[in-house]
């Protein structure tokens, strides 16, 4: 009988703590516990044996902290030795006891993944892969991934386990007292992620005692279709004379865990501070108890690293704006690799009420896979909204799903066999909720019957992959009513019947309904209301459209989905000052502050808006002036004087950094208007030269570098921003390849200045012509000289000055 079959018949019992037992036997503070696998194998086997004799079913090999970051060629013992000895010691105990299973125990790497930390996702996968490979070779019976506090690292570990073994994989995480992971995920989000990754059991361990765990355990059981594991600490820790002690004894522990078993937990055990005695009492407790009945929990949930969005009764808005179709400015941003533009599109939609962001970056002339991967990583570093991966390119879809931190929405699959064959394996491997279009080889059915039939076919095919109905959202398809008068009615009928007859969720790309008609928002918003009333559960719309969001918020209030109409009142309870340039412009014109006929007032307005750092007003003033004035003239008479004035004030100490930057951003907004105008008239702005900026390897704080970037761009320099934590090689490669004349490097800490020095050294060899300017909190002019820099820039204006020295000043 395999372990999973055994689990079906009983409540499984894990072992208890290891660390404190090793300390009792002489492990010193700071000594790495896994080294005892080799130094004291007998002690390890003895402890495992004590747990087995106490009645436990699963012993954890002493491999929790074993990874290549701690055990490698440079350390006394290598990873291979440590892990194999760990598994062997446990195996020996199991053989001697005559019962039990050996779990390869995998804990966190101790490093945080990018973008929060400095460990690359694929590096994390490969670190875990090594452990898994050794564990499999040594004959572990299962893999337990535990004490994970970050969903991204958790995903890396589970992927490594599933991709490199056929063993059962269990995963437990550590919540804080607020019921969140270190990086913010709730139990609901963790369940969605782990179910998607197809683990065999999931749960909670460490951090808290059994009593404090209760609320999280309740949540896990509520959402999880998989068996739930609970391995608590022996209460909460406190310090006594420098030693950690836990606040509840074995009896109280067992009593509290017993209450959790009653809630429907399928496996229990102990973590820090627990002993064979704790486990013995748990064994008594679980004997004769039947395991809880497994039930499929019907929750459709997509997640990001920190948030979980449920698709069901309460309709969900998916923002459609990250998509180049029909948007020339967006296409241009993709071609110019202008990620800021794309991120801004995302955050604006978030501010306006989107719960999920659709991401489509397909453009024939760019590498969609690379761009998709990059945009997903960038977006998830600045927003907590879940993403909808929107592509028909299977490779781009796979790459995006792999690096995505959570359980994504996937757009889309349809009834064509070929498409299902490509998409479902990805959903099975990475998890996700997939949008299923009701069309197939024969096209789009004209009737609701036809669409319902395709939906049924898709459900059945998904079932073959173990993808349940809850992870499929049926797209009932919107076709424009301008060519097919009854199309809206067919769509609405399909939406209603998917809910009533199939019990499934639905989604629509709402705005297609009005294609070819004038004033499309009228039709879109009315249709949206009708669809919601027919049970639509998710809508892909433009959340920046007032009309659409009015329908959405009103519907939720009317359908009793918005308690006390809180969201409705929050959105419409007070009038807000116009927040964008278009509105600012209208307002200024209405109030006769600005008029195209009065250029002098306009110029003054532009200059003062830039100086005061008023973004919308600066853009509005520029836009009005450009109706009559020449763009270059505007730069000469307004922008340069305003920027110079602010810059000089900063140097004199009368203007400070926040004002300098607000001005810079206002100038940027005005320049954007100027650029638009110049493009329309076919002019191109002169760039004064390209500068590379980077924060050096090992340094993950890039605020200083970004300040410099904003200012340099305003002074018409082209900036190639290589980001943060950038290797010397990459900086040298780009500098050499593009024949760059000036490189700016930043470093925040004394510990990262050496990599700045190394970068400069490499640049001197690979690109001897280049000048290097450096800055950062720990640097001084002397320090900069010692590491071989050409210039030390104490602040952003100093970088501008130095750049002008290299490339010539703007007056020339």
């Amino acid at each position, binding site marked *: 009988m395999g372990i999973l079959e055994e689990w079906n018949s009983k409540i499984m019992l894990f072992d208890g703590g290891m660390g404190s037992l090793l300390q009792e036997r002489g492990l010193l*503070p*700071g000594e790495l516990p896994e080294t005892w696998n080799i130094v004291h194998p007998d002690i390890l086997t003895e402890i495992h044996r004590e747990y087995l004799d106490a009645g436990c079913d699963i012993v954890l090999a002493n491999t929790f902290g074993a990874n290549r970051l701690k055990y490698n060629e440079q350390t006394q013992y290598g990873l291979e030795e440590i892990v194999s000895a760990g598994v062997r010691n446990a195996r020996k105990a199991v053989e001697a006891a005559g019962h039990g299973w050996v779990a390869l125990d995998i804990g966190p790497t101790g490093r*945080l993944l990018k973008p929060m930390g*400095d460990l690359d996702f694929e590096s994390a996968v490969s670190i875990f892969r090594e452990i898994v490979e050794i564990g499999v070779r040594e004959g572990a019976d299962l893999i337990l991934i535990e004490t994970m506090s970050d969903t991204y690292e958790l995903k890396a570990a589970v992927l490594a386990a599933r991709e490199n073994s056929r063993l059962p994989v269990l995963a437990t995480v550590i919540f804080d007292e607020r019921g969140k992971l270190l990086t913010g995920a709730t139990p609901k989000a963790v369940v969605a992620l782990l179910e998607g990754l197809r683990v065999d059991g999931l749960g909670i361990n460490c951090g808290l005692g059994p009593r404090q765990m209760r609320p999280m355990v309740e949540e896990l059981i509520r959402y999880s279709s998989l068996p739930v594991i609970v391995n608590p600490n022996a209460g909460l820790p406190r*310090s006594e004379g420098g030693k950690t002690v836990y606040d509840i004894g074995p009896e109280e522990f067992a009593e509290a865990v017993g209450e959790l078993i009653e809630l429907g937990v399928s496996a229990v055990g102990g973590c820090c501070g627990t002993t064979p005695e704790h486990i013995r009492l748990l064994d008594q407790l679980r004997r004769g108890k039947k395991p809880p009945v497994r039930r499929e929990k019907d929750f459709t949930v997509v997640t990001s690293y920190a948030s979980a969005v449920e698709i069901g009764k309460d309709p969900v808005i998916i923002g459609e704006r990250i998509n180049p179709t029909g948007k020339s400015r967006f296409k241009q941003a993709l071609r110019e690799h202008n990620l800021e533009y794309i991120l801004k599109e995302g955050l604006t939609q978030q501010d306006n009420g989107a719960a999920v962001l659709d991401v489509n970056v397909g453009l024939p002339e760019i590498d969609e896979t690379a761009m998709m991967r990059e945009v997903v990583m960038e977006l998830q570093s600045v927003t907590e909204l879940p993403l909808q991966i929107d592509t028909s390119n299977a490779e781009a879809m796979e790459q995006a799903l792999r690096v995505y931190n959570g359980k994504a929405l996937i757009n889309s699959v349809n009834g064509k066999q070929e498409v299902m064959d490509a998409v479902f394996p990805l959903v099975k491997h990475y998890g996700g909720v997939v949008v299923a279009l009701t069309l197939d080889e024969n096209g789009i059915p004209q009737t609701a019957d036809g669409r319902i039939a395709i939906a049924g076919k898709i459900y059945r095919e998904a079932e073959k992959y173990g993808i349940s109905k809850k992870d499929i959202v049926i797209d009932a398809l919107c076709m424009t009513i301008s060519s097919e008068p009854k199309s809206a009615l067919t769509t609405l009928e399909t939406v209603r019947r998917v809910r009533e007859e199939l019990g499934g969720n639905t989604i629509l790309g709402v705005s297609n309904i009005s294609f070819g008609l004038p004033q499309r928002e009228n039709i879109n918003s009315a249709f949206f209301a009708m669809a919601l009333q027919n049970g639509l559960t998710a809508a892909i719309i433009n959340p920046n459209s007032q009309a659409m969001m009015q329908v959405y918020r009103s519907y939720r209030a009317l359908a009793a989905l918005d308690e006390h109409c809180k969201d409705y009142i929050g959105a419409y309870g007070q009038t807000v000052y116009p927040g964008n340039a278009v509105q600012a412009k209208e307002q200024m014109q209405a109030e006769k502050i600005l008029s195209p006929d009065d250029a002098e007032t306009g110029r003054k307005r532009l200059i003062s808006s830039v100086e005061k750092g008023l973004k919308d007003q600066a853009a509005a003033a520029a836009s009005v002036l450009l109706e009559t004035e020449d763009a270059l003239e505007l730069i000469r008479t307004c922008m340069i004087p305003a920027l110079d004035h602010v810059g000089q004030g900063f140097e004199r100490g009368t203007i*400070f950094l926040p*004002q300098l930057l607000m001005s810079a*951003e206002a100038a940027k907004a005005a320049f954007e208007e100027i650029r638009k105008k110049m493009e329309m008239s076919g002019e191109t702005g002169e760039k004064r030269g390209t500068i590379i900026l980077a924060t050096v390897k090992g340094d993950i704080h890039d605020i200083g570098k970004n300040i410099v970037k904003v200012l340099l761009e305003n002074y018409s320099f082209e900036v190639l921003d290589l980001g943060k934590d950038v290797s010397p090689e990459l900086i040298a490669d780009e500098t050499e390849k593009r024949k760059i004349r000036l490189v700016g490097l930043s470093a925040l*800490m004394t510990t990262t200045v050496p990599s700045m020095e190394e970068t400069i050294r490499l640049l001197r060899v690979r690109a001897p012509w280049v000048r290097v300017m450096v800055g950062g909190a720990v640097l001084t002019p002397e320090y900069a000289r010692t590491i071989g820099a050409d210039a030390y820039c104490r602040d952003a204006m100093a970088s501008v000055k130095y750049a002008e020295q290299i490339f010539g000043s703007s007056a020339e």
Partner: protein
Amino acid sequence: MMVNLQEIYRYLGIMGNRPDDATKKLVGECLEELERAAKPRSFSRSFPMSVLPDGSLDFTCFSVKSEDLKKNLKGCEEVILFAATLGAGVDLLLRRYTRLEVSRAVVLQAAAAAMIEAYCDEKNQELRIEAKKRGLFLRPRFSPGYGDFSVSCQRELCRALSAEKTVGIMLTESFMMNPSKSVTAVIGAGREELSCAKSGCEACRKQDCLYRRNEIQ
């Protein structure tokens, strides 16, 4: 938590008390946004301390050589190791605005720095009251990176506190803390009550620091 506005302005390089209206408004907005995003947590544990024959300080969980720290801990019989953080939510805001609105990022950065200081002071005060009940008086907190107390001691300090689990602080290879708005420190406890003339900024020997307190006017 009372965040000191003057400290925010100092971090922003605004000398004296002359922030313009736009900056004041931005600081206010940033504080509000921070209040929502920050999830402060702290943890501390006390350890016995002694001076080893080679002059290094021993806290049983690790030992360290640092003259400046030794001066700070003179006459102490135990140390409280301390860690505090504003949490990962603040870093999301910083990352977001660093990419998209750097003026706000700069102000958030300064406001968050003042906020974590205020939070540490608050927790520090609680520890002080607790210690006093045991007849102990606390020295000013001293962090890795101050004076000759090497920043690489972060590793041992975080390990001794299981900082990863207790408050959620992790270190990068170059000893940067994650979340970035975090503080770790050693706080000495002794039988003698010393009136500390200098603490924090003023005790530092780096006289040419841009952000140095008091030398500003």
